């Protein structure tokens, strides 16, 4: 029932979330590769993947549009590619600029925003702009109908909430009184909003300097022309995130902090009524039942390896047991906290996943079957 294929059935958007460093990017790429092999047209959107992984998929150029992974690169790895795999690396600044261009009602508004000193200096530093850009791009691509499925590797945010909140934050911003304040002349604003407002302006001026205020006012004034577009877009994006054809996968390693983050994120997902598709516990130490206890291992291997080396092997067995015990405990905790009886457990591999074979191996662990074999 809870096989990967069932979890992905009918889904058009698959969002992969989790802490940094737990293998989100490779899990996203493996999921996308598996679905593409099964016959879907799949786009995977990622930010800054591991260099060699990108190289192995032929993505050395950073473009802000999906590019098809050359099927030739995937041949000869024992899979039949029935669909298409596309991939792109997100450029948050370019995506945000594109959005401005897209939503500007006319050329002069567009130029005014893009040319504004504050916008130019700060748009790339906006907190959460990566998150917002990611959902904006996700929306664009999913709307284009060029793909059956879009897989989004979420930005490495310490606060995954920024991602879920991105559309709301934008709506708040545009519906907020702050912006409206800049859209009406000060005199009228003061009348409408009361005397507090003129005090606010006076103090803002004192604190920030006139220059800054003018620039901020200029930017906000120009953005005013984009309000309706932004509001609609934010609402559409929000609807997309909560849509039944969207699913969120949470990836974690069994380490303490990513587990805590996964539990936290799942709670927020539930609060926001967004669809949770499954939990992937990556890099799990799975103990070989035949391993035996360290003392016995040392005794058994002493004759073959000598006592010193047998002792080292025994020590590595002891380490493995500690790690495996930690991982069992983490998985139990996750099962309870996420109310997810069957998480997808992926064993720890001996190195980073950085080539097509590695992705295929990862996909086999995710799905319990080989790509392209339904």
């Amino acid at each position, binding site marked *: 029932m809870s096989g990967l294929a069932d979890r992905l059935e009918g889904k058009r958007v698959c969002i992969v979330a989790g802490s940094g*460093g737990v293998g989100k*990017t490779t899990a996203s790429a493996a999921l996308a590769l598996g679905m593409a092999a099964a016959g879907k047209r799949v786009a995977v959107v990622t930010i*800054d*993947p*591991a*260099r*060699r992984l990108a190289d192995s998929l032929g993505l050395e150029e950073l473009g802000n549009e999906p590019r098809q992974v050359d099927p030739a690169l995937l041949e000869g790895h024992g899979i039949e590619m029935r669909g298409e795999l596309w991939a792109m690396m997100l450029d948050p600044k370019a995506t945000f600029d594109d959005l401005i261009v897209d939503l500007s009602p006319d050329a002069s508004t567009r130029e005014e925003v893009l040319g504004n*000193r504050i*916008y130019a*200096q*700060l748009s*790339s*530093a*906006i*907190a959460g702009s990566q998150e917002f850009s990611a959902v904006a791009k996700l929306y664009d691509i999913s709307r284009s109908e060029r793909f059956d499925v879009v897989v989004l590797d979420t930005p*490495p*945010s*310490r*606060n995954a909430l920024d991602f879920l909140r991105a559309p709301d934050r934008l709506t708040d*911003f545009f519906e907020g*009184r*702050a*912006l409206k304040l800049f859209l009406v002349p000060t005199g009228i604003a003061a009348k409408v909003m009361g005397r*507090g407002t003129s*005090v*606010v302006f006076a*103090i*803002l*001026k*004192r*604190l*920030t*300097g*006139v*220059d*800054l205020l003018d620039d*901020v006012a200029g930017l906000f004034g120009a953005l005013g022309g984009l309000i309706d577009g932004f509001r609609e877009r934010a609402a559409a994006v929000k609807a997309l995130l909560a849509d039944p054809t969207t699913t969120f996968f949470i990836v974690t390693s069994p380490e*303490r*902090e990513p587990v805590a983050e996964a539990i936290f994120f799942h709670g927020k997902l539930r609060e926001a009524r967004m669809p949770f598709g499954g939990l992937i516990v990556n890099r799990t130490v799975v103990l*070989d039942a035949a*391993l035996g206890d360290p003392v016995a*291992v040392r005794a*058994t*291997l002493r004759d*073959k*390896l000598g006592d010193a*080396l047998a002792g*080292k*092997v025994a*020590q*590595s*067995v002891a380490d*493995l047991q*500690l*790690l495996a015990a*930690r991982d069992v405990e983490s998985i139990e905790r996750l099962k309870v906290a996420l109310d997810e009886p069957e998480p997808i457990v992926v064993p720890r591999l*001996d*190195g*980073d996943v*950085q080539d097509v074979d590695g992705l295929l191996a990862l996909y086999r662990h995710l799905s319990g079957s080989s790509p392209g074999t339904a």
Partner: protein
Amino acid sequence: MAAALGLVAARAGKRTIVAEVARRGDVASAFDRGGAEPFSETELAPGLFHISIDPQDALEEYLRDQLPSGPVAEVLIRSRVFTMVAAATPGMRELLTVGKLWELAQLDRRTPGADAYDLVVVDAPATGHGVAVLSAPRTFAAAAGSGPVARQGTIIDAMLSDPKRTAVVAVAKAEELAVTETGQLREALLASMGLPLERVVANALEPDRFSPQEAKLLESHAGHPAVAGALSGHARARHQRAQLARLRRLTDGRTPARLPLHPGGPDLERLADELASQL
């Protein structure tokens, strides 16, 4: 790691504060003090303090400090208009956060009755955003041109971009992505702040137990499950060694501090011991 670094400094007799900037309480929970009061300086261990910096709290504190009259500050703080403007101004959250860090680092503290710290350890956000936070004062000073914000931004930036006063420590696992990001952090710091990476710490390293000869002998007994497990560990250690070499290459050829993985879970005191022996 920030907590361990703070502990090292506190043990050396420095009055130290560990500041978190993402309101998560990681540091407090590392000391088993979950739910520590946010935005107050709490003593976790002798000479070691903790604070969680929230931009909204920092803004309120700044206004109370900057404005001559208490009531005016209160009006502003309660004015939704004002907080919306502040929150909506791009980069303002970063600026407020970093402003509070600056305040903590002053010998003559603005916070009434507060004592000076010898060292402020910042548990910074992940690579990309971390640099944005550090460079916020510079960006703002350039954008504002004149006025108090520009002036203060310049002062704060002078501290942050001075290698004598500010040191950036990068912590990375010996993994492809983490090593790549550390290289990018080094570049971004140099480009936007003119700051070098003071030190790189490679964390959670797996033991590199077996010599090539030993590995060879093990391979001839790979059928034994324990030996197979040991060989798999050896493969990871070898991969890790390659990543450590890459890390060194990407960070001016300097050898990173190396901290081992603790299979039983991290222990702060022990982490601090290991860190102290290598700094």
